[in-house]
C-alpha cells in the first residue's frame, strides 16, 4: 500500500463528489425552470386559448375536438365592433382607472406621510383597520352605495366610478406608500427641515423623488386593479360610463353561437392592460420587491 495509490483514490473520489455536486446544482436549476414554465403555461393557457378562439369562426370555436389549425378570421371582431363601440368603453376604462389612481395617490401621499413620519398611538391601529375594510365583501355594501349614488346622481357616471375605485384601492395604496416612506431615513427629512423646507417642500423636493419607483409601482398596481374591477362597474353603470369590463359582460347573453365573439371582445378588453403590464413589469417588480431607495 503506497501513499500514492491512496492519494489518487482520494483524488478520484473527490472528483466524483465534485461532479456529483455540480450535477445536483444543474438538476436543481432544471427542475426549477420546468416548474416555472409549467406554472406560467398553466396560467397563460386560458388567455392564449381565448386569443386563439377570437380568430375562429363560431363553428370552429365550438368544434370538438378543438381545431388547432384553422384559417384565422377577424369576423368576430368586425361583428362585435358593429354591435358596440369598443373605443367608447376603452376610453371610459382609461379615464376611470387613471382618474382613480391619481386621486388615490393624491389622498394617500399625505396620509402615508403623516403615518410614517408623525405617528401617533393610533397609527398602527388605523392602518390595520384600513386593511380590514378590504376583507368586507363588496356585495355587503352594494345597496347603500347604490342608494347613495342614486341620490347624488352618480349612477352611470365616470366620476362615480372614479370615486368608488379610489376608495377601493386607497387602503392598499396607503399601505404601500407607508412602507416605502418608512424606508426613507428620518435624518434626510430633518436635514431638509434644517435647510428651511416646509412640509410641502419636504414632500416635493425630498420624499417624492426618493420614493418615485415605489410610487410608480403603486400607481401601476392601482391602474391594473381599477381596470380589471367588474363588480362595481357592472352594478353602477349602464352605458355612458361603462368601462371594458361592462363591455365584455354585454356579450355574454346567450344568443346563438357567441364563443368567438365573446373571445374577441375579451381579447380587446384585456389587450391594453396586458401590454401596459408587460411594458411596466420591470418597474413594478423593482418597486414591489426592493423598496424605494435601494
Amino acid at each position, binding site marked *: 500500500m503506497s501513499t500514492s495509490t491512496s492519494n489518487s483514490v482520494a483524488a478520484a473520489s473527490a472528483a466524483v463528489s465534485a461532479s456529483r455536486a455540480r450535477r445536483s446544482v444543474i438538476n436543481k436549476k432544471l427542475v426549477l425552470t420546468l416548474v416555472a414554465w409549467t406554472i406560467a403555461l398553466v396560467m397563460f393557457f386560458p388567455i392564449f386559448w381565448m386569443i386563439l378562439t377570437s380568430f375562429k369562426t363560431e363553428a370552429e370555436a365550438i368544434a370538438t375536438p378543438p381545431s388547432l389549425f384553422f384559417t384565422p378570421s377577424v369576423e368576430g371582431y368586425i361583428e362585435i365592433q358593429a354591435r358596440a363601440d369598443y373605443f367608447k368603453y376603452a376610453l371610459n376604462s382609461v379615464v376611470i382607472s387613471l382618474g382613480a389612481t391619481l386621486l388615490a395617490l393624491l389622498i394617500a401621499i399625505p396620509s402615508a406621510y403623516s403615518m410614517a413620519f408623525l405617528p401617533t*398611538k*393610533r397609527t398602527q391601529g388605523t392602518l390595520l383597520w384600513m386593511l380590514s375594510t378590504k376583507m368586507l365583501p363588496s356585495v355587503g355594501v352594494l345597496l347603500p352605495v347604490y342608494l347613495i349614488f342614486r341620490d347624488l346622481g352618480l349612477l352611470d357616471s365616470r366620476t362615480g366610478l372614479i370615486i368608488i375605485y379610489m376608495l377601493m384601492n386607497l387602503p392598499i395604496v396607503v399601505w404601500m406608500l407607508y412602507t416605502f416612506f418608512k424606508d426613507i*431615513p428620518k*435624518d*434626510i427629512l*430633518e*436635514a*431638509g*427641515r*434644517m*435647510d*428651511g*423646507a416646509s412640509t410641502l*417642500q419636504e414632500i416635493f*423636493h*425630498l420624499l417624492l*423623488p*426618493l420614493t418615485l419607483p415605489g410610487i410608480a409601482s403603486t400607481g401601476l398596481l392601482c391602474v391594473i386593479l381599477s381596470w380589471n374591477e367588474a363588480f362595481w362597474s357592472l352594478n353602477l353603470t349602464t352605458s355612458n360610463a361603462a368601462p371594458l369590463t361592462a363591455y365584455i359582460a354585454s356579450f355574454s347573453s346567450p344568443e346563438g353561437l357567441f364563443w368567438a365573439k365573446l373571445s374577441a371582445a375579451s381579447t380587446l378588453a384585456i389587450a391594453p392592460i396586458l401590454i401596459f403590464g408587460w411594458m411596466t413589469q420591470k418597474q413594478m417588480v423593482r418597486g414591489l420587491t426592493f423598496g424605494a*431607495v435601494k
Partner: protein
Amino acid sequence: MSTLTLKNIVKEFTSGSGASASTTQVIKGVDLEVKDQEFVVFVGPSGCGKSTLMRMIAGLENATSGDILIDGKRMNDIGPAERGLAMVFQSYALYPHMTVGENMGFSLKLAGVSKEERAEKVNAAAEVLQLGPLLDRKPKALSGGQRQRVAIGRAIVRNPSIFLFDEPLSNLDAALRVQMRIELARLHAELKATMIYVTHDQVEAMTMADKIVVLQGGVVEQVGSPMELYHHPRNRFVAGFIGSPKMNFLDITVTGVAGEGVTVRLPDGSERLIPVVSQTEDGASVIVGDSLTLGVRPEHLMLDAQGPFSGQVQVIERLGGVTSLYLATPDGSGDAPIGGLKSDEQSDSGWILMADGDVNSRVGDSIRYGFDTERAHLFTREGLALQNLNRHPLTSLTRQDNSLSSASAAQEARA
C-alpha cells in the same frame, strides 16, 4: 455674535398608550451658557441625552419645559430653519438624489436665492472644503470622508450663527477621524462661528473643545475647559469619565484634617497628606474617621520599590512610548495573593499604571508602586470631590490658545 443659553431645559418622552402610558424624563433640567465663537463639546455615556439636547437646540424636538435662547431671543416656538443654525448629522443625511452641488445649495434654493448667487456661495464653500472636483457627483459616488465634508459644506453654505454636530466623525476610520478633527478645528478658527459638538470620543472632546459639557442621565455633571475637567473633576463620575485609561479608585479612611490638606491611611498602613480642601462644594465637611475614595490617574502612579501599593501584573500593553500595566490589587490589603482575582473582576478591582515605555516588568511579576500625592483626588461617599488646594495653571486654557494662529497673533502683539 451668537450666544446660546439654555435655562432649565426638561424633556420628557411619553411611550405606550392609554392607561399604560408612561413618561420618561430624558433631560432633567439643563442650564448652559455658550459664548460667542465658543467650541462646546457634549460628552457622556450612550443614552445620556446628548442627541436629544442637541435636537432641542436645533428645533427638531420640542422642549417639555425651559427656555432656549439664541442671542438672547427665546427660540422655543421658532422653527428649525429660522433659528439660524445648521446641523451636521452622524449619518450625513445627504440628499441621495441630488448632486453634491445641489445638496449644498438646497437651503439657498428654498430661500429663493438666484442661481448665480447660489453657485457662487456653493463654490466658495466647496473651496474651503476642497470639494470643487466633486460638485457634480451624487453622494453615492463619494467616500465616507467626502460625504462628511459635503455635509459640513451644506452647513457652511447657510452661513449659520451656530453649527451643531452630532457625532459627525463616528462613521470614519481612525486616520480620517484625526484628519477631519484637525480640519474642523481649522474651520472653527476660519469661520469664527459658535459650534456645539456631540461625541463620546474622549480625544475629540479633549482636543477640540473650548468647553466640555459632561452629561449623565440627562443631568449636566460638569462644565469646564478640558484641563479643568481633567485636573479638577467635580465628582467621581467626571473623574472616571474624562481621561484614558480610566482613573483608579480605592477606598481609604481619613486620619487627619488640616489647612494644608487631608491625611489618609493607605492599605499598607502608611499615611499620606493629600492637598485638598476638607469641604465639598455643597458644604459637607470631612472629619477624621470618614471613609473616602482616593482617585489616582494611571499616569500619576509610578513604580517604586518603597511605594505603599502592591500588585501583580496581569496584562502589559506596550505602546512604545508608554507601557500600561494592568495590576491585580487585593482590595484593602497591601499584599497581593498571586492569581487571586477572576478576570471579569479585573477591570473593577484592578489598577492601571502607566509606566515608562522601557519598563521591563513581566506578566505575573509582583510590583510595588506609589503615587503623586499632589495630583491625587479624594471623593466623598456621595461621589463629590474635595477640590485640590492648588488650581492647576492650565485650567483656563482654551483650544484657541493651542493653535498656531493665536500663537502667532500673540507673538505679533508682543512684537
